[in-house]
């Protein structure tokens, strides 16, 4: 069961706006998997998301320490799996303890966590567009709790202010 919306952005500010648009959909125990190549804007999107949840400190890359926690509401754990080589290393991060404690987990290079969390997650795919600055962003809801929030996804796709109206929501 899944549902999808797509958008394109022309600036990092618009990518941040997509992140801010996802923020109000999030609740305790949610997993967001960010998938996309280097420079696609994954951390940029998280900056918008964390700021929209009331985060005040700058969102820096968690690549090295693997996880940053932000005291937002709900609390966000920003994870980056880029350095990892084995699924066991993802298991070792004990993310279910964060989720069970009422937190939201946002995972960069999220394809590495799909075997563990992919069945019930919001999957955001970021890619390079036609120009250096353009990015394509596809937001896909997976699992019952996310499907029930699919109406909110079209608003998310529209949040990249001034972007072409490619937003489309449909059962996939």
């Amino acid at each position, binding site marked *: 069961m899944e549902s999808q919306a797509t958008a394109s952005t022309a600036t990092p500010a618009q990518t941040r706006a997509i992140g801010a648009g996802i923020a109000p959909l999030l609740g305790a125990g949610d997993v967001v998997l960010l998938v996309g190549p280097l420079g696609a804007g994954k*951390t940029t999107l998280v900056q918008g998301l964390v700021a929209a949840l009331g985060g005040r400190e*700058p969102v820096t*890359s968690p690549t*090295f320490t693997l996880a940053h926690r932000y005291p937002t509401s709900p609390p966000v754990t920003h994870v980056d799996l880029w350095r*990892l080589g084995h699924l066991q290393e993802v298991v070792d*991060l*004990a993310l279910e303890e964060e989720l069970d404690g009422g937190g939201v987990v946002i995972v960069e290079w999220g394809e590495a966590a799909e075997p563990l969390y992919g069945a019930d997650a919001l999957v955001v795919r970021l890619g390079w567009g036609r120009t*250096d600055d353009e990015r394509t962003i596809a937001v896909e809801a997976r699992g019952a709790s996310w499907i029930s929030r699919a109406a909110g996804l079209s608003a998310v796709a529209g949040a990249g202010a001034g972007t072409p109206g490619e937003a489309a929501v449909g059962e996939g």
Partner: protein
Amino acid sequence: MTDRGRVLGIETSCDETAAAVVERGRTVVSSIVSSQVDLHARYGGVVPELAGRAHIELTLPVVTDALAGAGLDRRGRSFTDPDGPIGIDAVAATIGPGLIGALLVGVSTAKALALAWDVPFVGVNHLEGHLYAAMLEAPEAELPVVVLLASGGHTLLVALDAPGSYRVLGATVDDAAGEAFDKVARYLGLGYPGGPEIDRLAVSGDAALIRFPRASTAGVFDFSFSGLKTAVVSYVRAHPEVTNADVAASFQEAVVDVLVARTVAAAEEIGARGACLAGGVAANSLLRARFAESFAARGLVSYLPSHAMCTDNAAMIAAAGYFQLQRSGPTPLDAGAVPDLQLRGSK
């Protein structure tokens, strides 16, 4: 604390397990780092790159080796006098920044050893440890100095005014310098870690071929490398024929350029007597050469750490622990790990 001021330091903030014994914050008696290389050789078996499980398995053997290097058995007593007094005066461990599951192993180990031996526990900021790494190798350095701390996880400019007294002048607002090296290297299909690979490949490339952007930041001593990383990807996508060597050389040029320029400006701003490199990126050969050149041209001393002191180690944690114990006493046993601990300055 005895006159020897012997501190056992434990470092498990990331993917290296390390322990060391240091006297009076200056003399390294023993220092063990379980890098992948000697792991396979000494402890056997497959070693996961990451944290939690590896640290649980390795911390006790690594501590045992560090104690042995100081002539002590696992119980902290001299091999020549096994019923004598404990030969360690305090136990220090990194409490942050780092990965929570990794940090907790070192913190829990250190606090338990402190309980077992009835000696003080000291919780140390990993980044402060890096400042002392510089000092461990340059005890004669005249202060103040500016320290450029650049690693896979951090990029900071710090003014070290006196032993135990420092100010943070600037930091990265997005990616760390070492992270940019690693990510560009892997994007180009080079090995990991990326720093040494880019360093090696850049020698045969044209550093002037591509003029990558030098990001300006709101804070004059801050850094930003996210845009540079994206610019590299963007350039390679648009110029598929470009060689990895030219990209590596031009990219490295841009990073080193910014790092050295900001450090020089900071040194002039605070009237530093010298400048010091710290962190894993300090192993980069172009950075070392430019750093030394730039400060020599201004009549200032530059301190370039050895490879062992660039990377994560526990000697620097033991040294920082010693000075912290002198300045502000033991850390209570109810201290935990602080994964996003910042370096704020000593006051």
